[in-house]
């Protein structure tokens, strides 16, 4: 190896330790661009040095779910933004689009994910399903059924469930503020 080549290789090897991955650069941009959050959303980081894993708390200020505090775990992988972040609701809640294991039916988390979307798009999407639960894409079929046939009963069920009550055979987590 020539001297010049050797020097270049050394310099290259020296910087490799501090390389920032494309996924991290993109996530850093997403996060920085979030700036302050709307008052219905909060984020927390179990490890502030780890941007890839965090918890989003949504406190809807309108709709059926007003008064509830809902938490979602976000796991972003190195495949980001080719791959969507993995999002789960960490509570057992009564919602037509969220099942009892916390899986969320939100198109942009799966079939409609695109690399141009970002963390903020997912946060807005999650907020939206509390304002407008959609009985046509059910994950909790019973809840969806009630929402499409009897909105009054649905509202009562949501209120009961948010206080930790039972709907059918399921006891839900208390999520009231």
């Amino acid at each position, binding site marked *: *190896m020539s001297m*010049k*080549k050797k020097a*270049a*290789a*050394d*310099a*290259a*090897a*020296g*910087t*490799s*330790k*501090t*390389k*920032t*991955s*494309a996924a*991290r*650069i*993109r996530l*850093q*941009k997403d*996060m*920085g*661009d*979030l*700036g*302050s*959050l709307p008052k219905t959303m909060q*984020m*927390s*980081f179990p490890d*502030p*040095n780890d*941007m890839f894993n965090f918890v989003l708390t949504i406190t809807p200020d309108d709709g059926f779910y007003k008064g509830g505090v809902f938490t979602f775990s976000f796991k972003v992988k*190195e*495949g980001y*933004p*080719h791959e969507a972040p993995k999002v789960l609701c960490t509570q057992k809640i009564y919602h037509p*689009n969220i*099942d009892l*294991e916390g*899986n*969320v*039916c939100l*198109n942009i*988390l*799966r*079939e409609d*994910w*695109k*690399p*141009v979307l970002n963390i903020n798009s997912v946060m807005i999407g999650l907020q939206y399903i509390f304002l407008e639960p959609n009985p046509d*894409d*059910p*994950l909790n*079929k019973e809840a969806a059924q009630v929402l499409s046939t009897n909105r009054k009963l649905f509202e009562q069920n949501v209120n009961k469930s948010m206080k930790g009550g039972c709907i059918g055979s399921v006891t839900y987590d208390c999520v009231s503020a």
Partner: protein
Amino acid sequence: MQVDGVVNDWPNRWRHPDVYMDRGGPFAPESFIGGDELKEFIHSEDCKILVVGAGGLGCELLKNLALMGFKSIDVIDMDTIDVSNLNRQFLFRYKDVGKSKAEVAAEFIMKRVPGCVVTPYFGKIQDKDEEYYSQFAIIICGLDSVEARRWMNATVLSMYDEDDPSTLKPIVDGGTEGFKGQSRVIIPKSTACYECSLDMQTKPVTFPICTIANTPRMPEHCIQYASILLWPKEYPTTKIDGDDPDHINWLFNEASKRAEEYGIRGVTRTLTMGVVKNIIPAIASTNAIVAAATANEAFKLATSCAATVNNYMMYVGDEGLYTYTFPLEKKADCPVCGTESVKLAIPATWKLHELMESLLERQGTQMKKPSLACGDRSLYMQGPPPLEAATRPNLEKLVSELVKEGDTVVVTDSGLPISLKLVIHFE
């Protein structure tokens, strides 16, 4: 063949490629200088080629490169040979099952093409550092994963230092998917890079989760019901391993029950494995076509004997047959190539907030709220609030406490298309 693996070329061995190395084509770049020196270069160790991947494309690439006169080739692959590879990965025989693809491929080529030295590495691309990658003239990728390509692309682009032309390593990338494929040339900083084309890459097939949960219609829905909804319930702490027969059997059984319940036909063990591992069918001839184009581009890049593709060729064989070549544009917001890298000398007494203030005053960019990181560590984040709070104490720290001489600080800002890299030097 001599014992040390080196043979003298016999007369006229390279007569055909030599024609092009003597005179070049009508559209050869101005840099083309034909003749014996060029021929010697191509056959020498100074023109060392790296082939990443020794699978369907890799076997074809190695054969093509060796037969064109490249005599110094490295090949990397982390996989071992599986029986299912033998139908198209023609450098392997039944007796090789279980052995390293890279090692068997290298041995085969060296036996078949005397004088060609192929050095295998049985392992991951991530095991190797920039010093390793800097020894090659050209890097050729024949990979089947987006993740590996992104890593290779980012590594090769980050090695490029505009002040040192020897750090410029072109990538020639081939890929296939059934009857479709593509071959492209990536010249760091002058053409689009792999990351620029991320939104063109095929995503793993996904279905709406409510369809999987409630209204399955296809065998794939039943398999994803088992893998996405049932598995995490049954084994919350174990990740599915598509190569573990027990995992596949469990998923296959559950998917079959689901299929029976809904009267859906077509759930098989093979399909289960295909869906879980996201296997894209590989057609041997498509590999041959794409690898041939890819190897020819590498030869033209190495010799300058003719113009290379500008810069992306699609081979579309699943809707009749056509090829389409177009100059893929660089993306301004590409986190790999859209990032300008600047050397920045700062006083050793500066605190992080002073560095931040100097960024706001920087000419030519309109930064308002820069967030800074070094490697995997955030130095200062403008948001969200908990990250801002956690990194705020750094503002009063000396930059020299946070980064080392020569470290790269990555700056993102809403005023930047994506980011700016600062290579920090202390005065």
